[in-house]
């Protein structure tokens, strides 16, 4: 596949100094933590914490960079970890960062079933063995017209699917979030039909851009961002990128995703980023990149057209929004 170089950096893309310093402070702190943890890890090789989690916490040595990463400057760790939607922990943008402490991510089991040769339950480290983690710096565009650039650590989903061995009947992949109102207080409300469900067509799931993220900024994924494992589909609106996944089911029929069930005229199955197809209540033509003052034009497929447009050739994107 031809991997295009992203266009040269524009003046508007140069990060403001305070954000840059913010990031540098973070990186310095992260480096300090990394060194400290590595030393601790070395001292405790083979041991486990009381909750059963492996000790190696800064867990992604020799992280491979990826040609699919954008060269744009990522948003600060603070932006990414304090501003997002995760209705299982509340509907305000800051709620997940304040409430997600109740989520227990170790141990964590992911059920793989449906139209597969051999249904099985695996842990995250098995998935990491099937598909080694890579750094993927992606744009994220929320359906609410804000966006970020996020340095994920992700497992290419295609390799996981190959290991799962779906049968020829499998046309779609359905993902399900953990259902546990004790850990996820938002699931006590009737806001959405819990547990959260999302789905992809098989070719979308196999696209090299599609990853299951397990880390952020080189460290383990914070709870509020969908720990321990979440989908990232950068050319689709953020709500497609389902968090804290416990089930991956292969199916012949198109899954009904949660937001589509909640308001089918507003949120479709495909949810491809498209400036020409407005949300019924607001325009999708522009977006606010967090940290920037001026809105910027939204790009078709969030700027990933070279990698994904061919999958939708001949489809009416207004109808299949």
């Amino acid at each position, binding site marked *: 596949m031809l991997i295009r170089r992203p266009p040269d950096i524009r003046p508007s893309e140069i990060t403001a100094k305070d954000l840059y310093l913010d990031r540098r402070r973070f990186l310095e702190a992260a480096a300090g933590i990394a060194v400290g943890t590595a030393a601790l890890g070395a001292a405790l090789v083979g041991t486990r914490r009381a909750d059963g989690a492996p000790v190696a916490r800064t867990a992604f040595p020799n992280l491979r960079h990826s040609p699919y990463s954008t060269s744009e400057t990522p948003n600060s760790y*603070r932006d990414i970890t304090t501003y997002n939607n995760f209705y299982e922990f509340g509907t305000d943008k800051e709620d997940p960062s304040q409430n997600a402490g109740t989520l227990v991510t170790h141990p964590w089991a992911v059920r793989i079933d449906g139209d597969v040769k051999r249904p099985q339950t695996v842990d995250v480290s098995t998935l990491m063995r099937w598909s080694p983690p890579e750094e993927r710096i992606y744009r994220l565009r929320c359906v609410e017209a804000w966006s970020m650039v996020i340095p994920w650590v992700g497992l290419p989903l295609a390799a996981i699917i190959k290991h799962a061995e779906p049968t020829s009947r499998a046309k779609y992949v359905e993902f399900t979030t953990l259902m546990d109102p004790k850990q996820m207080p938002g699931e006590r409300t009737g806001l959405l039909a819990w547990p959260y469900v999302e789905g992809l067509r098989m070719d979308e799931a196999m696209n090299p851009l599609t990853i299951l993220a397990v880390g952020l900024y080189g460290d383990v994924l914070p709870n509020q961002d969908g720990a321990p494992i979440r989908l990232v589909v950068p050319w689709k609106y953020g709500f497609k990128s389902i968090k804290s996944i416990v089930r991956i089911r292969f199916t012949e029929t198109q899954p009904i995703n949660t937001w589509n069930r909640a308001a089918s005229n507003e949120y479709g199955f495909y949810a491809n980023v498209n400036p020409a197809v407005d949300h019924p209540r607001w*325009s999708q033509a522009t977006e606010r990149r967090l940290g920037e*003052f001026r*809105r910027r034009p939204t790009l078709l497929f969030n700027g990933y057209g070279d990698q994904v447009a061919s999958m939708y050739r001949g489809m009416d994107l207004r109808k299949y929004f």
Partner: protein
Amino acid sequence: MRGTALTWTKAGVFVLCLVPLLRLGVLAFTWGLGANPIAFVLHSLGTWTLVLLLVTLSVTPVRRLTGWNSLIRLRRMLGLFAFFYACLHFLTYVGIDQFFDWHTIVADIAKRPYITVGFASFLLLIPLAVTSTNAMQRRLGGKRWQRLHRLVYVAAAGGVVHYLWLVKKDMTQPVIYGLLLVLLLGMRLAWRFARPAPGVMVNRPPA
């Protein structure tokens, strides 16, 4: 309440009404506005517009229930503060959120029902602010002035609808504002029907 007491009360309420704005100023310097400060400021100013509209609309019911007739002396200021926050809300949308992109702004107002309603409600408040002075009240005459200023009921309802149509799923907040508005307007209706001779209480001179 007369003379100095009234002056001090007015001064106190004036400062109180500025607190939401001062708070935004303080938050701006302490990273308190979060990762999306423009959206935070926009939503905060909209919320306080709605709060102050409801506070203004509660002057008459509270006055009737408590007999504190001098509350009426605060109503104009409260209403003007509601208008002040509505202006800041609108200017934030036009000048900061959309950065004077008139093409988009006009399209938004025409095409997005929640923005249409919000903008119409804002427009309704303008004649009320303009005719809020004693001189304008005299020029229009009490009856006509009162009839004109009933537009505030429509503007407040529009404000609630604006909020209701904007949220994605969690309707709790707009529904609370809506219920408060229904209560405040319902009390007026109830009193109107319960009282055979309308206008007696309203026009009674301050005690």
